[in-house]
């Protein structure tokens, strides 16, 4: 198990390496640079800027020194746009809000999605099932940005209950969290429902019933425990969705997270910032998937990695 974990963890390194290489190559393959503005800078100024940031060196040298900085000093280099700030500063400022938003949405998705799925399966083909299915369908069919805007229309513009943007007080956290959690809630509910229905037909459930175990006990001790095991497998993709999906929600609700810098950094060719963010996102996705796999083995003793 330990060897397996270590191997899986080490495998993240070459993956990140390839991701960084692709990103770096893409950004340098196309014309234009970080100093392009509506007004062109004088050639001499541009040369001096390039020299200062090392952009006059061959691309391969730039790449190596950039990777070197990260590996040896955990330094992602300067931002070419925010002159007085390093990439580390900018990301450090934005990361807490992004992580908070992601975790809140994840908690909401799990805490609502699982009961919703259980509720649907226990009332299979009756009204609980229909209500839960209807909620799931709406959640799956409504993109997070559409959900976010509709929530603003209803709760901020018409009802005036909650603010449209900002991130300073808990009141402002409600709408973005729901908007981001909408899709994962439906996914988890659908999956939990299917898994519960599958478990209902198992022999050990029939055995439990026939030896006189109470209904409540069969549901809580046998069905739910077994049904949740496969649900854990989709938590990885869901966490990945929350990580990468948050940037659009941050944009709609003007949340000071790191997502809003992403599109900006591509458009402005702020290489340093862009590559750092791509790497962080890729690391988050790979790492979270690993965590979920480990969790899976932990809760289901039948699974052994080797």
């Amino acid at each position, binding site marked *: 198990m330990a060897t397996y974990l270590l191997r899986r963890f080490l*495998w*993240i390194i070459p*993956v*990140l390496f*390839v*991701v960084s290489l*692709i*990103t770096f190559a*893409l*950004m340098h*393959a*196309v*014309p*234009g640079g970080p100093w392009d503005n509506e007004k062109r800078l004088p050639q001499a100024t541009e040369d001096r800027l390039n020299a200062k940031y090392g952009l006059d060196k061959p691309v391969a040298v730039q790449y190596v020194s950039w990777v070197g900085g990260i590996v040896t000093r955990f330094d992602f280099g300067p931002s070419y746009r925010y002159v007085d700030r390093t990439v580390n500063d900018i990301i450090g400022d934005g990361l807490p809000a992004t992580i908070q938003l992601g975790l809140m949405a994840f908690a909401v998705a799990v805490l609502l999605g699982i009961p919703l799925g259980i509720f649907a399966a226990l009332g299979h083909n009756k009204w609980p099932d229909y209500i839960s299915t209807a909620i799931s*369908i*709406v959640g*799956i*069919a*409504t*993109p997070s*940005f*559409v959900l976010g*805007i*509709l929530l*603003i*229309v209803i709760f901020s*513009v018409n009802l005036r209950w909650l603010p449209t943007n900002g991130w300073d007080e808990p009141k402002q956290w409600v709408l973005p969290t729901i908007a981001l959690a909408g899709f994962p809630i439906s996914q988890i509910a*659908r*999956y939990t429902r*299917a898994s519960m*229905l*599958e478990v209902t037909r198992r022999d050990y459930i029939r055995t439990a019933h026939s030896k006189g175990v109470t209904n409540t006990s069969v549901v809580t001790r046998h069905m739910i425990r077994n049904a949740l095991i496969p649900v854990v497998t*989709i938590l990885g993709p869901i966490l*990945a969705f929350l*990580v*990468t*999906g948050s940037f*659009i929600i941050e*944009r*709609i609700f003007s949340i000071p997270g790191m997502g809003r810098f*992403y*599109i900006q950094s*591509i*458009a402005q060719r702020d290489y340093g910032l*862009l590559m750092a963010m*791509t790497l962080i*996102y*890729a690391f988050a*996705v*790979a790492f979270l*998937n690993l965590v979920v796999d480990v969790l899976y083995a932990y809760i289901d003793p039948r699974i052994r990695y080797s």
Partner: protein
Amino acid sequence: MATNTAAATSASVRPRAAMGPWREALGRLLRNRLAVIGLILVILAFVTAILGPILAPFPYEAQDLKGVLANGGRPVPPGVGGHLLGTDVLGRDLFSRLLDGAQISMTVAIVVQVVVLLIGVPIGALAGWFGGRWDTYLMRLTDVIYAFPDLLFIILLSVAFRQTFFGQALNGLFLVFFAIGLTSWVTVARLVRGQILSLRETEFVEAARAIGVPDRRIILRHLIPNGLGPIIVAVTLGIPGAILSEATLAYIGVGVQPPRASWGSLVAEGQKYIRGDSHLVIFPAVAIALALISFTFLGDGLRDALDPKLKGKQ
């Protein structure tokens, strides 16, 4: 007489034997209420997209400035001045623009899946049939692509190549289709590989090999028809994802360029008038939601119909 009976029997039996599983699947699909609703909506969406230019009451870029002025410089509300769903602040008919957007979304639905099939099927088949080195390469590539947050990769690709010829083709849409396809083929490749791995061990493939049927013929006549079901399902269920990606990109301003608008960019435009004229954001939002729902219903129904064993699973 005897030969007649034999001919009649074989004539009545053979077509059923050939069509059997597919016809049965069709029957199962048509008995599924949600799938039928999905199918009808999907057909409707394609018909709307194709007939859009004829059905549209106005050209999508035509401005009804008089209507806007009559309304005090604000977007014309739904139902006024022949505008079924109203206009935007420039007086452009929202219904006509939605019809034009349908064309974009339905093109995404088809083109992206064609790209996915063109890349995914051959690579998956190679990995599954030949195994060994090919298989390892595919699996490693899959790891990298799965680690790359796909929406970010699509944005990166689209913005990086925006100024090039490649990025200008088809009004900026070509690059978007290509980028979305590039991030989604892995699922199909893995699926094809899995199908081939399990099918090549079956008795009928073994029998075909034993009597000397060439590889190419085994793949075309035995493996592909038998492994087709899950691939059809994956492709159908991949469509809502592709439509969603395009809408999301358009929402943040990547992809189709004005004056044409995709549903995603209509939502982005409408968002500015959310306080007074929320119809501008609500109608395109509903259009996106309906498209996603109908393809999801159809895909779920197809999955249940084509592979009863998988019923209820993701």
